[in-house]
């Protein structure tokens, strides 16, 4: 009888651990928003720095940094990071960055993605190449596995309308 109770306790403990492990996935994903401050030094040099986005008004640039870490013991493959761009923001051309990734954009709310030069939009009966203000999403596709314990980073800058 005593042994049976012990087994029951051990079994329930195992399932509890299994449940925790299931809640916690393979990746940890974190997004930070910062404001880009531009300072011109006395020497006339322009210095840019990232500060907390505590005070942001129209015309300011904000930088989103997404970090993703493989917290499991298995490698993750085909890692794709998708980030919508708020309708109150305009993507700053050429600002998207992500080591080891292919960066693409969407102009149709994330339904499809392509390189900027391949994107077209239709406005008032006219088809024209997409411009940064047309972008609705940014997508980074990793070109290699994200190994256990490894961390990747994706970043872009946008201007508050």
């Amino acid at each position, binding site marked *: 009888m005593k042994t049976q109770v012990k087994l029951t306790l051990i079994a329930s403990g195992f399932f509890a651990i299994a449940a925790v492990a299931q809640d916690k*996935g393979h990746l940890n*994903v974190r997004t*930070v928003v910062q404001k880009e401050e531009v300072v011109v030094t006395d020497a006339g040099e322009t210095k840019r720095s990232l500060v907390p986005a505590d005070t942001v008004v129209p*015309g300011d640039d904000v930088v989103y940094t997404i970090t993703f870490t493989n917290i499991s013991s298995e490698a*993750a493959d085909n890692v794709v990071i998708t980030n919508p761009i708020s309708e109150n923001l305009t993507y700053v051309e050429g600002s998207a960055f992500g080591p080891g990734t292919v960066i693409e954009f969407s102009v*149709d709310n994330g339904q499809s993605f*392509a390189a900027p030069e391949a*994107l*077209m939009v239709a406005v008032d009966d006219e088809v024209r190449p997409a411009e940064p203000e047309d972008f609705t999403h940014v997508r980074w596709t990793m070109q290699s596995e994200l190994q256990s314990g490894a961390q990747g980073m994706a970043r872009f800058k946008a201007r508050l*309308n």
Partner: protein
Amino acid sequence: MKNFRWKNSFLARLGLTAGVLLLTQHAFAAGTTAGTDINNLATVSYEVGTVLQPVVESAPGVGNDVPGVGNGTITTFMVDNRVDFSLTQVGSTNTIVTPGQTDAYLEFLLTNDGNLPQDFNLALIPLASGDGPVNTTFTDTDVELANLRIRVGNGGGVPVLTDLPYGDEIAVGATVTVYVFGDADLLLGLVNNDVANYELTATVAAAGTALTLGTDLVDDVGNPDTAAVEVVFAEGGAIGDGVLEVRDGFVVFGSRADCQQGGHGYFGSVQSHDEPESNSGCSCRVHDYDHQQWRR
């Protein structure tokens, strides 16, 4: 927000390119309204051993590692109050008035270029000789008019005593007319060539209660907070102080009958082709805008 119209021909044409169709477009207005939350949520998809895993959404702080849609937390910031406005004089010369005239006024335009409705505290400062030129020509200030009033026009085109003496709930992008005028005895006792110059100041104040002038705003520099609307002075597109000034004034000359074309507002603008009138032995001169000189 622009409107997009779809036609089959366009769909076909677009289908031949690597491009994709535009369904929405970002809104571009004077600026995102202060107090708006700008939210962001990234999503990561991946496979483990060729098996597609539930997506993981992002979170600020320590991040999120719980798979599944809805388990992430938005990263957000709030749009702050960018105070930007302009105050300009209507016209470019002093308003010509005549002794005894009761309907002379100065006229200014006040525009809210910020991203939130604002009140504006308006004040008039009499200038003295030595305070610098006003309207180039009128550098001397030798009289001060009594009982001048400030009123913000409600669109009627002329000053109205019952209008408010401050800018009240001025909407984003809106322009109002500010009048400076006096009582019926405004110009009694004045003589030709008397000049009365003034500086009108507009100080931005908090809106929120109609028909009540809010308190003057204070820049929140050094007091950042992502969760509250902060005030950032940026009038004229630069770092500001929440206050703008503009100068204008009156110049007295002739009788009203003599100078019907020589004034401002009710009197209309004087152009080079306007000939001065003269009667009753009074002399009259008008300012020739084109040649920047007085003519009799």
